[in-house]
């Protein structure tokens, strides 16, 4: 009978625990790490995105920006600090809902920076919306996200529908390209963007191709581009594929202009494509760093490198939430605070329209020159 006991004991304990140990009807669990002043809410903001795993680069750039904003805030409010809670989704929509629930259940969390990608946004944002927890995404650019009627959804950068036409305009007006080839990476971001460019360029598109993420050998695409006689190539995708693609194109002797969007705007593209990256045009709905020199120098001092893709948006998103905390807002009142927000951030004037999109979007063109990404002005 010993085994009977082995089974029964834990169950009995569980039953007892349920039945006999009294009940509790207070509002919520008290966090272990309390101890600030009575007025201090011990609030937290959440960082929702890929912090580990294969997509972690982007998430960490954002997180760096968020941490910088937190440092600024906590320096000013040393008596009532705000802490950062990380929700590491690895960019995986499958993990996102449970993490969102975790954030929602933690009543100290008054706002979320993220979710970083469009896929996880779709999986997690309905829950945030239902719980009334504000999310400001610094990087998810799918235009359709704003059409779901989520009242907690805000986007601190331009979506693909603003960037795509600008890229097409630049190719047409500035590069004076007459034969353009368009490649996308079949991702939500890359394909969405490339489709807009294809539509805007119309008949001057001489060829299309689709590659896959993580692909490394692009010989078929290279043949298609070179044989099409294209003088410009627009690639909708991210830097891990952009670097080998342009390298192989240059190796094959292609001389046209390589045009990409903000998903490629990071130093690793240049580090890996090396000389082949020279002359690449990068469009980005982000204000050049020289507009916010303070942010740039602070970032460099802390992380020993220049701000990277979406670091500035991460900083801005977090700043909005922190301003809300400073103004005494809690989770419920934060939505209206963000909705009414109108201040200058490091990337742009931070102001949202009725759908939660950034109200004032400017798209800039950048160029790779001597191994650096330099601004070549706004695309108007």
């Amino acid at each position, binding site marked *: *009978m010993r*085994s*009977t006991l082995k*089974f*029964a004991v*834990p*169950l009995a304990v*569980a039953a007892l*625990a*349920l039945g006999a*140990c*009294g*009940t*509790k*009807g*207070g*509002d*919520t*669990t*008290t966090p*272990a790490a309390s101890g600030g002043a009575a007025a201090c809410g011990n609030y937290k903001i959440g960082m929702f995105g890929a*912090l*580990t*795993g294969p997509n*972690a680069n982007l998430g960490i750039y954002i997180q760096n920006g968020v941490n910088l904003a937190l440092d600024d805030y906590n320096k000013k409010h040393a008596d009532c600090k705000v802490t950062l809670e990380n929700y*590491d989704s690895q*960019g*995986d*929509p*499958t*993990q996102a*809902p*449970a*993490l969102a*629930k*975790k954030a*929602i*259940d933690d009543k100290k969390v008054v706002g979320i920076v993220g979710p970083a990608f*469009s*896929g996880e946004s*779709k*999986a997690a944002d*309905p*829950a945030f919306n*239902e*719980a009334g927890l504000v999310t400001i995404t610094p990087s998810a650019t*799918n235009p*359709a996200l704003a059409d779901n009627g989520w009242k907690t959804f805000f986007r601190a950068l331009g979506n693909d529908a603003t960037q795509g036409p600008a890229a097409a305009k630049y190719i047409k007006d500035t590069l004076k390209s007459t034969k353009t080839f368009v490649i996308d990476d*079949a*991702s*939500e971001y890359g*394909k*969405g963007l490339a489709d807009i460019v294809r539509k805007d360029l119309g008949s001057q598109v001489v060829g299309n191709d*689709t590659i*896959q993420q993580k692909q490394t050998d692009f010989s078929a695409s290279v043949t298609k581009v070179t044989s099409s006689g294209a003088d410009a190539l627009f690639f909708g995708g991210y830097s891990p594929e952009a670097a080998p693609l342009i390298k192989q194109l240059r190796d094959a002797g292609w001389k046209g202009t390589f045009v990409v969007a903000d998903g490629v705007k990071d130093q690793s593209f240049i580090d890996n494509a090396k000389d082949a990256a020279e002359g690449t045009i990068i469009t980005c709905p982000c204000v050049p760093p020289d507009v916010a020199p303070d942010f740039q120098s602070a970032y460099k001092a802390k992380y020993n490198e220049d701000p990277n893709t979406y670091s500035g948006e991460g900083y801005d998103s977090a700043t909005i939430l922190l301003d809300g905390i400073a103004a005494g807002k809690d989770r419920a009142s934060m939505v209206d605070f963000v909705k009414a927000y109108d201040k200058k951030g490091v990337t742009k004037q931070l102001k949202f329209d009725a759908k939660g999109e950034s109200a004032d979007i400017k798209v800039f063109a950048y160029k790779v020159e001597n191994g650096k990404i330099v601004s070549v002005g706004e695309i108007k």
Partner: protein
Amino acid sequence: MSTPTSAPAARKPATRGFKERVDHLPRSVKIVLWVLFALFLFLLPLLNIPFITTEGSDFGGVLFTVATYVLVALGLNIVVGYAGLLDLGYVGFYAVGAYTVGVLTSEHAHLSWVVVVPIAIVVAMVSGVILGAPTLRVRGDYLAIVTLGFGEIVRLTLVNSQWLGGAQGISDIPKPPSAELFEVPSLDWSSGAPVVDLDTTSTFLKFGINDFVPYYWLALGIIGLVLLFDILVKSSRVGRAWEATREDEDAAELMGVPTFRFKLLAFALGAAIGGLSGALFATKAGFISPDSFQLLLSILFLAAVVVGGAGNRWGVIVGAIVVGYFPERFRDFADFRVLVFGLALMLLAIFRPQGLLPPRRTVRAKRADDRQAVLEEGEASA
């Protein structure tokens, strides 16, 4: 190679195994134990037991994920464990199930959930037959690469087909119909001792956005049904035919077992259960995209089956829990999760090569093999 030697009848249980001891309990005690155990499983997400509960992610959500892994592992066990077919593309069926639900409830039609789930099972089963019919004639290791290819083909088709939502996937998959019966309170351990927390409750069978516990209950119920089915099939003529085919296909064929047909049946049943778990996943997630059906998942599914002990349904359940739960429980490892998981697989393979809970036959067969090995080695190494 090794001829199946029958276990010597003279061997009496010197050390009675755990299972035998449980078998010897009186029937009434067994039933009570089972009921209590089932109750415990149902209440698990609300008990919030310290140490077991996942800190980094919602426990109910994690338990649901674990439950889908269990379901998948039970299905894959029919293919790998019972029929001995190495399937590296099981995620394909999982995706077929999920996308059937997505397409029929949101993308192209708005059928009711109750109607769609059986359709998803049937579609997955048909895809299993379509894949199996031509490929099951090729030998074991070839099957591995063919199935792996199938998993990738399914994913690439999802990515590149706009009709199926492309990379954007399918959103707004409706929830199953709710029947709000009663609320179940949860336990709060923050003061050290358990306290019933009446504010944090789960409503029985209310399928909302922000409470995963009802989905977990649904999954548990389905697991129960699948288990019942599994037990019935395994102990029937079909189960014995699978065992014969796995052990020695040629001999089985000679004895009049239509091995191909039974292999196809295993494939179809496995696919059906895979499709069912995919359908369940799509229902809970509300949003599916090709990202959720990576090749890696197939490998994790297979790992669940082999880690637990291919061929033993309780073993694969344990394996699925290990594979599904530990990465979430030890989120603190963050970046090192995959590394640790890989190390664990290697250690397990070395120190527990039959899996955590090997099927009983394997224990028997292994003894026979060992005896034979001793006999052969005895001469060779002398």
